[in-house]
Structures are given as structure tokens and as C-alpha cells.
């Protein structure tokens, strides 16, 4: 199949064509030709759009696929559809399914079920059985079976010895450990960020300290286990950091040459804890929305490269888990479809090139994936978008509706993705 992108602005810091407005001819999953006024033969799909932009396909490092086990919230098909609508050609799925991705057969199930889909799915395997933080999974075996990284997902690793051993064990095959930093003893029964707002609402707090302690601890454990190595790919990746002090700790660790990386969930860049005043359960998320100063620090961290990538932290929850009392409601927000719109709408100074670097270049490096560059002869793994177009998020393609952006108008629209020789147009805008 041939696709012609007409007059597209190329956004790819690594491409010789970066910044040019030109035509791209795609054939059989490859970029065949880049140049002006390319002629379209018959039977060719021509994509023409006002203010058309194209970049290497985006990657989301943190998506809850919910399948197997919670298919009423999302399944492997729907999560791919949602990812494509959000502009993601590649997604990494958390292992917190039922059963967890702690064995080859569950991992194989996920790979098989998503094989033909235009979105490439990378299962993250659990570090411990059931992602419960106790016994190791067969990590080498899972690595050979296709696990892209290791993490207990939304169960933060508590045991320091386990973390050290995992880092050491992953080293021979250059494995990646991803951990959501949180000291659970400090967050028991917590519902939202601990601060004045939680005091005013009578809700038990999730102190930022609980995250910062583990960031600090894990960085020291990383230094202890593997030492400094500025040239290697990150070995330890912190998921969804949310506090100013975490950013500062990671900034210093990077300066010292520790092989560490981190991401932030897009909603953390948009909301602070004052948003919780109405007890809206669609704003209940872990880590919680923190103070305005924390939000500011996260933007600075993105700008100076401390924060490597932005994730959706897509976590679908059904009505039964959300349309209830705040303290009984589950944590989580769906985010794949609105990541780009939310980011652009609230952007504090990131250039389009920086955004593409964070959504495309850097996450591929972290996951040890092959780089994708817009050049002739390269794979056509592309996201097409219009960063200035406004659209209303009227309806979600997810099986769940727990998004604070539903009904809201956002700037920055994804037009579709091209991957594995297929074009998926975003019908939602």
C-alpha cells in the first residue's frame, strides 16, 4: 500500500529534513521518497490536511492494558485503538493484570493478541510473582520471551534488597528496571496529596515525602549495585515522578553519571491539588496532583532534560470503581487520547522539537528500541498531527470513561498514526 503525505512539516530533531514542509511517499511500511510535489499514482492514499505535521511515532512507557483480568475496563484491542487515536505507534503495558505478566504464557498471550495491530505493544514483565514484591519471576526467561522491561507496575517495590538484586540480575542482558517510587507505609489510607488542601477536605494525605524517600534510596541502591556509568542506557527508570524534590534528586544523580531516567504523567503537568475541591473521583490518581510549586518543577525538569519522557499513565476504571464515594473510588485516569492535547494546551515553554524528543526519541532509547528517523529508506513509523487545531474530547474510544478531559476543548490534535504499513486515522476529532 502506498501513502502520500502532502505538504507535511517534519518534526524530527534527528532527521536531515527536520523543519521542512514537504511531501512524503510511503510504501510497504517504508519511507520511499521525501521531496516536494511528489506525484501520486492511482490507488494511492493521499493525506492532506491543513497545518499537517509529521514526526516519528510516539511511544508511551506506561499504559495499563487491563487484559487479562479486567477486560470490562479495557482490553488489548481497545487499548490499541485508544493508543492509535492518541498518536502512539508503540506502547508499553504494565504487568498488573490478572494473572500478572509474571510468566511466559501471559506475556505470550499479550504479544499474540496484539500482533497484527498497527500499534506495537511491548509487555513489561513483573519483577516479582503476581507483582506482589516478594519472589522473583524468571527474568531471563521473560526477557527472551519479549519482555521490554521489568516493573511491578502500580505496586511500588518496597524491599531494598530486592531492588539491588534485580538491578544486578538484569545487568548481563542490559535489562531495564522501572519503579514507581513510593514508600507505602507513609501512604496508607491516603487519598490525595498531603497539604493544606487535604486538610481542608478532611482526606488523608499521600505525602510527597513518600516518593522522595524512595527516589533518594533507589538512587543510592543503584550506585551501590552498579556504580556510575554515564554512557550506558538507563538501568533504573522512575515512573510518574510528581514532586519537586524528586526532580532535583534525579537531576543531581544524572549530573553524577548514574544511569537513571524518569517520566512524568501528563496530568501532573496540568492539575494541582486545588482541583480536588469538588471531590471529583476522575481526578483521583496515584501519585496525586501535588502543589503548584511541584507542577512548576516538573515543567522545569522537562525543559532541562531531567525528565526524559511524558507518559499517559492510562489507567481505565469502570463506572463502578469511580462513580462512588471519593475514598472508596479507585485511583486512575485514562490518558492516551488526550496526552498530546493536554500537553500542548498547558505547555509551558517546550518546543515542538522537544515534545517529539520526549514522546518519540527518548522513550525508544530507554526501552532499547531501534531508533526511528524520518528519512528515505527508513521505516514509516509515524504520527501525524496538527499542533494548533482545537478539538473537543466529546467521546472516548476506551471502554472506560474516567478522564477529567471529557467534554473539554483542547489544542493540539492527533490526526492519526502510520505503522506496519497501515494508516489509522483518528476518527475522534
Amino acid at each position, binding site marked *: 500500500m502506498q501513502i502520500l503525505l502532502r505538504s507535511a512539516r517534519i518534526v524530527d530533531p534527528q532527521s536531515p529534513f527536520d523543519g521542512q514542509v514537504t511531501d512524503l511517499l510511503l510504501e510497504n511500511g517504508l519511507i520511499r521518497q521525501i521531496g516536494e510535489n511528489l506525484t501520486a499514482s492511482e490507488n494511492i492514499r493521499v493525506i492532506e490536511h491543513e497545518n499537517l505535521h509529521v514526526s516519528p511515532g510516539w511511544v508511551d512507557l506506561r499504559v495499563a492494558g487491563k487484559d487479562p483480568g479486567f477486560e470490562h475496563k479495557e482490553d488489548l484491542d481497545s487499548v490499541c485503538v485508544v493508543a492509535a487515536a492518541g498518536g502512539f505507534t508503540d506502547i508499553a503495558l504494565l504487568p498488573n493484570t490478572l494473572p500478572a505478566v509474571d510468566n511466559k504464557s501471559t506475556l505470550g498471550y499479550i504479544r499474540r493478541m496484539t500482533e497484527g495491530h498497527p500499534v506495537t505493544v511491548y509487555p513489561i514483565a513483573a519483577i516479582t510473582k503476581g507483582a506482589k514484591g516478594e519472589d522473583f519471576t524468571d527474568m531471563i526467561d521473560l526477557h527472551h520471551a519479549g519482555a521490554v522491561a521489568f516493573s511491578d507496575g502500580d505496586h511500588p517495590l518496597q524491599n531494598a534488597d530486592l531492588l539491588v538484586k534485580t538491578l544486578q540480575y538484569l545487568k548481563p542482558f542490559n535489562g531495564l528496571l522501572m519503579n514507581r517510587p513510593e514508600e507505602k507505609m507513609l501512604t*496508607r*489510607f491516603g*487519598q490525595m496529596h*498531603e*497539604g*493544606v488542601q*487535604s*486538610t*481542608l*477536605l*478532611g*482526606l*488523608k*494525605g499521600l505525602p510527597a515525602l513518600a516518593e522522595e524517600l524512595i527516589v533518594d534510596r533507589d538512587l543510592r541502591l543503584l550506585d551501590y549495585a552498579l556504580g556510575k556509568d554515564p554512557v550506558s542506557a538507563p538501568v533504573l527508570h522512575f515512573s510518574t515522578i510528581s514532586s519537586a524534590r524528586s526532580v532535583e534528586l534525579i537531576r543531581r544523580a544524572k549530573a553524577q553519571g548514574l544511569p537513571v531516567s524518569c517520566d512524568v504523567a501528563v496530568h501532573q503537568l496540568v492539575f494541582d491539588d486545588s482541583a480536588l475541591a*469538588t*471531590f471529583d473521583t476522575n481526578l483521583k490518581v496515584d501519585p496525586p496532583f501535588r502543589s503548584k510549586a511541584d507542577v512548576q518543577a516538573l515543567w522545569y525538569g522537562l525543559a532541562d532534560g531531567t525528565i526524559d519522557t511524558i507518559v499517559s499513565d492510562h489507567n481505565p476504571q469502570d463506572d*463502578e470503581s469511580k*462513580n*462512588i*464515594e*471519593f*475514598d*472508596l473510588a479507585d485511583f486512575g485516569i485514562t490518558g492516551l487520547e488526550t496526552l498530546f492535547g493536554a500537553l500542548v494546551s498547558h505547555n509551558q515553554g517546550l518546543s515542538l522539537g522537544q515534545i517529539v524528543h520526549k514522546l518519540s526519541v527518548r522513550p525508544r532509547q530507554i526501552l532499547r528500541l531501534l531508533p526511528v528517523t524520518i528519512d528515505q529508506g527508513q521505516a514509516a513509523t509515524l504520527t501525524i498531527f496538527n499542533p494548533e487545531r482545537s478539538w473537543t474530547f466529546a467521546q472516548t474510544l476506551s471502554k472506560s470513561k474516567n478522564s477529567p478531559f471529557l467534554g473539554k476543548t483542547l489544542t493540539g490534535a492527533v490526526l492519526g498514526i502510520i505503522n506496519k504499513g497501515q494508516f489509522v486515522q483518528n476518527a475522534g476529532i
Partner: protein
Amino acid sequence: MADSLSVRHLLGIKDLNENDINLILDTAKEFKEVINRPIKKVPSLRDITIANVFFENSTRTRLSFELAEKRLSADVVNFSASGSSVKKGETLLDTVNNILAMKVDMIVMRHSSPGAPHYLSGRIPANVVNAGDGTHEHPTQALLDSFSIREKLGDLAGKRVAIIGDITHSRVALSNIFCLQKQGAEVMVCGPTTLIPKYMSELGIKISHDVREALNWCDVANVLRIQLERQQIKYFPSLREYSMYYGISKKMLDDLDRPIVLMHPGPINRGVELTSDAADSHHSIILDQVENGVAVRMAVLYLLAQM
């Protein structure tokens, strides 16, 4: 002064303005007269049906609401269930919608989840009165406390009120802080460090961990119960130690330079936060609070029914 409230529901003191508070307290004064007459009833809410929906145990608050409703001639139904049984089965919204389907106009609800009445108010047509939501607010308690202080000491502006006890787990403390501040009173909270939320000081109040300091400072001491049932984890070693360092005796009150007013929202744990002789002393207006509770709740229900 406007003669109607700015809100359709009484969810918390946080949402009320000064005029709302004055209107409720002035109206309560009239109702207090009514309930002291030989015929304690008025026909004001004759056509209104009110459901008292209690998902948490309560004796005095529920009784107080029920009496207030009956003295306004409203029709009253009561529903009680523990939070956990509801969690297993029917949702809060389903429970309340079932009650409303039987043509109920107003819901008085106590619930263990902070924000539960706020959640409800956005989803049902009836007026909602918060009779206590977890560790968040207990607005009618704060209003009756203010009413009682007013009755005893006059205008609250400039008065010093110390709230002593388990502040972290108290909805009474938070509602009182809002209510007192909106009327110009100064507030101090006093208790063990672990029972005062870390960020409390940012609410513009004084913090003390010395009960004698609090008693010396205040015009009114509002003493709270230790909410053991709401403490999911350990906050202090023992009730014995608590009563030794935070318990208030009659002698401590008698030794003060000037008389203070002693309040307690009940139920009292005699021998823990208050000794019996303190609770029964001339300092105490605890039973006045209970009486005023009915009048204040009549005022709230009456005013909301007009909205």
C-alpha cells in the same frame, strides 16, 4: 441581611458566607423560643418529607435531627446501615435514589466518606444536609456550637476558642474552625502532635500541644473525643497517657485566672478527655449545646426548604 441562604444544600461551613451563618443562628433563636413553649411544634414543613440516612452510628445527631424535623411538622423516615455493608452491596447513589423514589424531599446524611454529601448533591434533586462526612465537616454541630457561644458570651468577633483533642479525626474541629473564623473569632487547636494535621497551621489558627496553655489562652474550650473508631493506624500510645496529659479536670478550670466556657460535642468519654467533675461543673454548657442543636437544625431545615 438577606433572608435566604446562598446555598441549596448544607454540605459544609466552607461553602457558607457570613450572612448565611447569621441567618441560620438568628432563625435558630426564634426556634429555640418555639421549642420552649408548651406546644413545641410549628407547621412550617407540613408538606415536606425528610429522610435521615445514616451510614454511620449516631444517637444524638440523629435524634436531634428527627426532633427538629418533627417540631417543624415534617414527615420523617429513618434509614441506617453501616458503611461496610453498603460497600459490599448497593451503591450510595442507588440507596438514596430508592429512598427518593418514595417522594422524599430532603436527605439528611451521615457518612464515613469525606465528600459523600457533595457527591450526592450533584446527582439528586433533593436538598442534602450533611450530618457529618468522615473526617471532613459536621456543619450543624459547628453552627450549634457558635449558637451556644453566642448565647453565653455574645458576638463571636474577637473571642478566643480553643479546640482540644483529636483534631486529625474530627469533623467537628474543621467545621468549627471555618465557622468561628467566618465570625471573626480566634481559634487555637490543641492536642498531641500526631493528632493535629501537619498543615493545620496554614489555616490561620494557633497550634498548641500544652492543654494548660490552651486553657489559659481561651474564652471557650471545645473539648473533643478521641475518635478511636476513625483511627486506622496508631497515633498515640494509650488512653491512659492521653488523659494524663490532655485530660481536663475541674481543678484545672477552677485554677484559671478567669472563668472559661467548657463545651463538648458528645458523647463524652468521662475520665479520658474530661473528668466527671469538669463535665458537670458550672463551666460546662454541654447540655445547652444539645438543646440548641434542635433549634439550629430546625433553622437549617426550615431555611433549606425555602430554597
